[in-house]
């Protein structure tokens, strides 16, 4: 089966071509071709998963053999210096995991878009690009060498540019597409630098060969490994990761990229494109473990990102932007996790892909009904959109890391690994990660409250979305709820678990068992509960004074009196999950007036911090610097162009002056 794995990226690619060629003549405008190809790809991925995961489990249970690895390649052309350009596939646990995630989410998005983009004039074009994007992403994950990976990476960038700017008639949309492309392009420069540096050091693009050489502690020509050079290349890769996976400080493109159609956001900003950077680090994990400096960089960047983006998510009014910042924050978790543990990083990638895609598609359904992205124009939707509400709730709880939903297991795993790693970076990620968990709960509580509680504040009469949209929601809710169980931190289960499926070597799997620390889990859940209480208290008892940090949420206060849904939510959440499982007595006591106020105060302070970070640091600072960079580049060009005066004698003078100056440079160079 693994020998025909190349079909998995090839099918969507072919589908893109066919849709362009024949789509307009098809009854559903080409969508059926895309759906069919993705469904086939998904089925193939499942079959492949059985084979690969089965082989890995056989290895872990018997304790002999190696992690499954199948490579096949075709030589395209020699590129000199003894190396050739290959088109090659690399099938291992990581590839198959990405296949499953990408094909499944992409299939769901394909189906969902039938309803969402129904009647759009560029419907066929949309499906073609969507298929093309899936193909590019699958190419990225299947490549066995860095050059092909770079090609996939760039194709993902180009197709995401087309998708984000899909409704290009609105200037904001095309600007967002340009911004996304340019920012990630800036990161790509780091990637190119890294690829060239690794090529220079190891004389090949082949990932397996480089990994083997690092394992043996050698580089090209058998010379001993230069760790400094390796760290340079890997940190250059981190720049690529920062761009593509929207890490601090290049994260600003992602919220803007929400201008694209919502299913696109679900696909590329939850499960695929933004995870490319995380995937890259995971792919090169054996290299990173040989370069502690690069790992520390990952930990610090991830920690900053997850905290900062969590704060930012608190103050967004656009539901998609909340989710966008939430994605940035979760990507921060993954990047930080990869500083310590391969499995923890990709496990969170895996679970997050499902529940965040669910949340985006749910948000799309909500937007479809409310005809607005703004949280102010929503409210009371639980009644009219029961399916959306239920599935969105599942996604939210998974994101909040409520046990036993998907997010709990993966996030807990990250914290445990960070604690086990210790040191400055480990402690940093542990503390920040736990705080970030509380923040996550806080902002998601707010979204839930503003969207579903109270009564509808927007225009018109919202109604439940069509089947083609709710179907994928339900289909995604299942893995969002349950997928975390595939890596239960129980020792006996380990040889059959996710960590075994996706291991890159048996040795790594044996030396890195999945652990569970009740203390850490308890603290995390406690903090999450605190976050929830703060959110609840804040939005229930929101005063309307001028000094209120959340006063921009003014209309909220009018519906605060009707706290029916919040109460129900509260009851559901606390009684059925948190309270029953871990912290029942604490919750009851905390409901006390005094603590309630204190917590509300803490919540308000957090919101204020988020607001300040957003206004001063993110919008004025980072965005300003990026913008300023562009402006100053332009400005220096504007000055320089005056040198082109149009007078040929000035040109000649410049030429001769150049000669004289060069002569001086020459002379100085000769003397020194």
């Amino acid at each position: 089966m693994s020998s025909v794995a190349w079909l998995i990226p090839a099918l969507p690619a072919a589908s893109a071509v066919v849709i362009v060629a024949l789509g307009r003549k098809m009854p559903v405008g080409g969508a059926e071709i895309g759906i069919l190809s993705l469904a086939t790809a998904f089925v193939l991925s499942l079959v492949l998963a059985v084979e690969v995961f089965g082989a890995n489990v056989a290895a872990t249970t018997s304790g002999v053999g190696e992690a499954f690895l199948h490579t096949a390649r075709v030589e395209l052309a020699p590129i000199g210096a003894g190396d050739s350009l290959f088109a090659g596939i690399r099938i291992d646990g990581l590839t198959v995991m990405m296949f499953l995630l990408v094909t499944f989410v992409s299939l769901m998005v394909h189906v969902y878009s039938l309803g969402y983009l129904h009647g759009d004039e560029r419907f066929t074009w949309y499906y073609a690009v969507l298929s093309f994007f899936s193909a590019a992403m699958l190419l990225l994950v299947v490549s066995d060498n860095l050059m092909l990976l770079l090609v996939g990476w760039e194709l993902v960038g180009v197709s995401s540019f087309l998708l984000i700017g899909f409704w290009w008639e609105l200037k904001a949309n095309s600007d967002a597409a340009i911004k996304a492309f340019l920012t990630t392009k800036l990161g790509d420069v780091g990637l190119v630098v890294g690829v060239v540096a690794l090529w220079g050091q190891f004389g090949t693009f082949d990932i397996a060969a480089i990994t083997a050489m690092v394992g043996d502690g050698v580089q090209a020509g058998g010379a001993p490994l230069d760790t400094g050079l390796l760290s340079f290349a890997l940190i250059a890769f981190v720049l690529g990761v920062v761009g593509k996976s929207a890490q601090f400080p290049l994260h600003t493109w992602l919220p803007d990229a929400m201008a694209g159609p919502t299913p696109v956001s679900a696909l590329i900003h939850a499960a695929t494109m933004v995870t490319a950077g995380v995937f890259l680090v995971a792919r090169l994990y054996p290299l990173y473990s040989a370069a502690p400096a690069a790992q520390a960089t990952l930990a610090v960047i991830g920690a900053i990102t997850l905290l900062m983006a969590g704060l930012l998510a608190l103050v967004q009014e656009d539901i998609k932007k909340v989710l966008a910042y939430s994605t940035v924050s979760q990507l921060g978790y993954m990047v930080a996790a990869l500083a310590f543990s391969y499995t923890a990083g990709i496990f969170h990638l895996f679970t997050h892909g499902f529940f965040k895609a669910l949340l985006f598609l749910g948000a799309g359904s909500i937007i479809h009904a409310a005809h607005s992205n703004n949280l102010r124009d929503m409210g009371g939707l639980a009644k009219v959109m029961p399916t959306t509400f239920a599935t969105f709730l599942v996604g939210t709880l998974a994101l909040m890391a409520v046990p036993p939903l998907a997010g709990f297991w993966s996030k807990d795993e990250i914290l445990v690994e960070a604690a086990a790693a210790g040191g400055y970076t480990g402690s940093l990620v542990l503390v920040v990660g736990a705080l970030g968990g509380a923040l996550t709960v806080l902002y998601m509580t707010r979204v839930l409250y503003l969207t579903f509680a109270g009564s509808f504040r927007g225009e018109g009469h919202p109604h439940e979305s069509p089947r083609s949209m709710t179907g994928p929601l339900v289909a995604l809710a299942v893995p969002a709820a349950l997928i975390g169980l595939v890596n239960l931190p129980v020792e006996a289960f380990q040889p059959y678990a996710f960590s075994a499926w996706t291991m890159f070597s048996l040795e790594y799997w044996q030396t890195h068992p999945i652990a569970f620390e009740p203390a850490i889990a308890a603290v995390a859940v406690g903090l999450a509960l605190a976050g929830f209480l703060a959110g609840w208290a804040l939005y229930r008892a929101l005063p309307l004074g001028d000094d209120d940090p959340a006063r921009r949420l003014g209309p909220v206060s009018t519906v605060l009196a009707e706290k029916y849904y919040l109460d129900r939510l509260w009851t559901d959440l606390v009684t059925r999950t948190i309270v029953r499982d871990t912290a029942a007595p604490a919750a009851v006591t905390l409901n006390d007036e005094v603590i309630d106020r204190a917590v509300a105060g803490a919540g308000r302070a957090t919101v204020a911090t988020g607001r300040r970070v957003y206004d001063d640091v993110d919008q004025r600072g980072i965005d300003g610097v990026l913008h300023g960079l562009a402006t100053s580049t332009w400005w220096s060009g504007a000055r320089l162009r005056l040198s082109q005066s149009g007078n040929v004698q000035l040109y000649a003078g410049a030429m001769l002056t150049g000669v004289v100056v060069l002569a001086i440079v020459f002379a100085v160079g000769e003397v020194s």
Partner: protein
Amino acid sequence: MTDLASDPTTVDLFALAPELSVVVAALLILLVELALTGERKRYVNLIGLVGVVAALAFTVALWADIGDGARAAFGNAFVVDAYALLFKGLFLSVALFVLLLSYRYFSEFRTYQGEYYVLLLGSFVGMMLMVSARDLVMLFVALELVSIPGFVMAGLRKFDLRSNEGALKFFVMGVLSAAILLFGMSVVYGVTGTTDLAGIAVALETGERLPLLLAAVLFVIVGFGFKISAVPFHFWAPDTYQGSPVPVTAFLSVASKAAGFAGLLQVTFVAFAPLADVWAPVLGVLAILTMSLGNLLALQQTNVVRLLAYSSIAHAGYMLVPFGVATATDAALNSDAFRAVLIYLIAYAVMNSGAFAAVTAVTRSQPSRLVADYAGLGRRSPGLAAALSIFLLSLGGVPPLVGIWAKFFVFSVAVEAGTAFGLVLAAAVVLNTVVAMFYYLAVVRTMWMDEPTVEEPVAPGKALGFAVGGLAVLTVVLFLGIGVFTDVAGVSTLVASG
């Protein structure tokens, strides 16, 4: 130079066959055009095409003939080796392309069709002679044979003051740089006592380093710096490119520039190789200046041709980077640097020709050449817009297009040098790549995202459409096929090793 006089009575006509077929075509055009009248004058283009194709065939035949060796005629003044043939093939392909580009442009233009083709082919003869020249005298004569018809062609839009001015500026700067170049060559001859490139290298290896000689090396570099429009010798380029007929602009920015690089490669890597520690840093500094200034100025442009002009200046900067890391001692590094320049030139020729072909096509319906004219091209002529997007993205260095290899080899040789200066150059390349993406993408965005101002599609015509389509395919295919040239370029480094 001693064997130059050895056997003057026999001339190796086969070695000269590519040049001769183009010369014959040029002279035939001159005669035949007199016999044709009116519309039919345009058929002289076909004579040119036949001549160029014949020359290409001879080039291939010579390629098969020489194997790993070389043929020489007129002593050492004319050498046919893999390096020379690679460049001849490149020039002839560009000639083919420029002829396709010119067919409709000049048949509508009516005046001086025949003369234009004669001048164009003559200039290409100069390029072909130049890459075979292993002697300063021959090199100079060939360089002038490239330049002088260029001055005239730049001014062929005689009714247009911009074209007049472009020609004047080109002429003044060209003649000035020729004078500087000659002054340098005269001193090099004086110090070494020979004009033979290999002989110069031998003399420099052993002789003392006279200060005057170093200045002369600088003068020679300046002379070629004009031809490749390196900063600060670039000023003529944007004005001339803007004023010239578009096919001539394509010719100037691709072929003429490639010829300048060929000449620079020959004098630096062959003749001046022992002085590499002197000229390499200077050319490296020029590289940084050239790419940065070119890109910063390109950001400002609203005229597409000027934008491409500055972009082509910036590309000259990238191509100068390998010169900046050359050394007098490390033959392997020099060989890689040499190869990086060759590959860049090939990739650049393909993608930049393509960009100019697409611009020519659009200019036919909207002569103002503004970026704004490209608004909505994606809807009016999706094929043309897709091709132009491919060319621009390739120029920006986006895989999977051939442009990434150009940047890749330049960048890797800068890193390979392992010196601080090499890393500075590498960083400059990276930063400039980012800046350049801004203006390439601005055009791409305009094409696909802005509302069209006019609705009717662009009709490029058969010859031009063929050129655009073929080059777009080549830009993609060469991403995979670059290996063909990396090996050839490897062989050609025999020039570098003397």
